[in-house]
């Protein structure tokens, strides 16, 4: 492919003491792609996410972005908030909403950071700042509408039903205007109906907002329907990469998930 990938991870390793949680993993995501990262429990998927989003500083390797708008940058060692500004947003495996704020406020928090009015002007409530505040409110409401949570806008986040909380995490991440969205087990704990809605939502986000998506997921039906390419990790190492069909029939992947057949 001649296209420049929007995210390029080269030879990434993360070592905790004697444990190589992520071991020389390389990965590429092209513009507009939905890519899945799968693997058995403890394979290092979430650690990989943490390295890319700046929660951990990787021991070795390079994380490079080529945003559709803006210039190429190396993310190693940057703070999470700086990485977020550069256009990467994520959700968590265990829901981490600001639970004592309203649904709308959760989205506004994400939205605010893209705009820049200083502390002084927000205390003085200058006209410019008020206009900005209004815009944040409108944008946030629009995002909630898209995700389908507008009727809960003024409820506390902790009072949302489970599926709603998961969607709100996505809404909050979308509010920061990312070009790449990293979803950590977005369908965990959802019922089949909610999972179907989620598939539709993710496809719509990609189409309407022109973003790429990297997701970690254990729900194989979701992974197979959504993703164009799949990376498989096991014990921190990348063991396979390919289209859903290729992965389904890859003997190494089957071995990683089901164990080796002794008689074979």
């Amino acid at each position, binding site marked *: 492919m001649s296209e420049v990938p929007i995210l390029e991870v080269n030879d990434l390793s993360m070592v905790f003491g004697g444990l190589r949680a992520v071991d020389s993993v390389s990965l590429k995501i092209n513009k507009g792609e939905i890519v899945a990262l799968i693997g058995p429990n403890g394979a290092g998927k979430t650690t990989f996410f943490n390295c890319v989003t700046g929660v951990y500083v990787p021991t070795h390797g390079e994380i490079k972005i080529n945003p559709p708008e803006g210039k190429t940058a190396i993310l190693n060692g940057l703070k999470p908030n700086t990485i977020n500004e550069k256009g990467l947003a994520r959700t968590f495996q265990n829901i981490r909403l600001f639970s004592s704020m309203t649904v709308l406020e959760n989205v*506004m928090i994400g939205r605010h950071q893209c705009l820049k009015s200083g502390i002084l002007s927000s205390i003085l409530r200058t006209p410019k700042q008020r206009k900005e505040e209004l815009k944040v409110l409108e944008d946030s409401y629009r995002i909630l509408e898209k995700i389908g949570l507008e009727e809960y806008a003024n409820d506390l986040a902790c009072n949302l039903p489970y599926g709603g909380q998961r969607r709100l995490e996505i809404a*909050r991440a979308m509010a920061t205007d990312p070009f790449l969205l990293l979803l950590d087990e977005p369908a965990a704990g959802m019922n089949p109906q909610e999972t179907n809605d989620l598939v539709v939502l993710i496809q719509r986000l990609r189409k309407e907002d022109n973003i790429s998506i990297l997701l970690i997921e254990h729900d194989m039906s979701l992974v197979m329907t959504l993703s164009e390419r799949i990376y498989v990790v096991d014990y921190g190492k990348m063991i396979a990469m390919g289209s859903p069909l290729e992965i389904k029939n890859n003997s190494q992947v089957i071995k990683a998930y089901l164990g080796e057949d002794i008689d074979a």
Partner: protein
Amino acid sequence: MNLEYFFSLFLGGMTRGSIYALIALGYTMVYGIIKLINFAHGEIYMIGAFTALIIGGALSLTSMNPVAIFIIAAIVAIVYSAAYGYTIEKIAYKPLRNAPRLSALISAIGVSIFLQNYVLLSQTSDFLPFPNLLPEFGFLKPVENFLSTTQFLILLSTAVVMILLTILIKFTKMGKAMRATAQDQQMAQLVGINVNRVISMTFIIGSATAALGGVLITTHIGQINFYIGFIAGIKAFVAAVLGGIGSIPGAVLGSFVLGLTESFGTGYISSDYEDAFAFIILILILIFKPSGLLGRKENEKV
């Protein structure tokens, strides 16, 4: 029962409560965001008072209008103390952000001792008089028996500070970022909030309100020394714990409860026990409602 006596005790208690509230805000906001009891906070209040004293004293040698002097002294004191708060955080707490909480606490106690002694060395241990800069407000004439001008000023400025702070926290971008950081610092960073800036801002706001308290108390009492920050800091800390540390309305409520208890206690029981009341309340609260009046109970994970 003498109603006038009761009223003067009541307003005296409200005045004390206001000062405690101005200091307790800083304790509770800092605790809410980085889970640190900033024991140097009382010293910020003391430095605010001293700055106002020095500026006020120097300017009163000129022929300026006393009210103007007071306003300038107050502003300089607030800005100077806010700078102190900001610097202390950067020097003494930020390097310890990922250290065990006890390390930062000890660092805070160290800063407190350092600041007390530095003011002691540079200013002597004597009580220093604060020039009387404010005229008596004419409209307070009918109630002057139980409400003095400075008391009125304290109540008024505390109310204004509370309202401004509520607006800041509820409605502005910085306020939302503060609440988000208090709830989940890492997640806040991941939605693009610059946590360091939020923490600095918290220290600046907390120090500014404490300094305002310092300026107001100096004009009210008329004399200060290096030690006032320690006792006021401890009492404001009690007030913050009483209301539920980490909660802003709690700190205000706790301060008024404490102020009124002290005032009525000294008025009706004995003034010998003035300082004991604060600690009796603290002990009772820790026994019966450890999370404080408005504090949230921490769920223990099993």
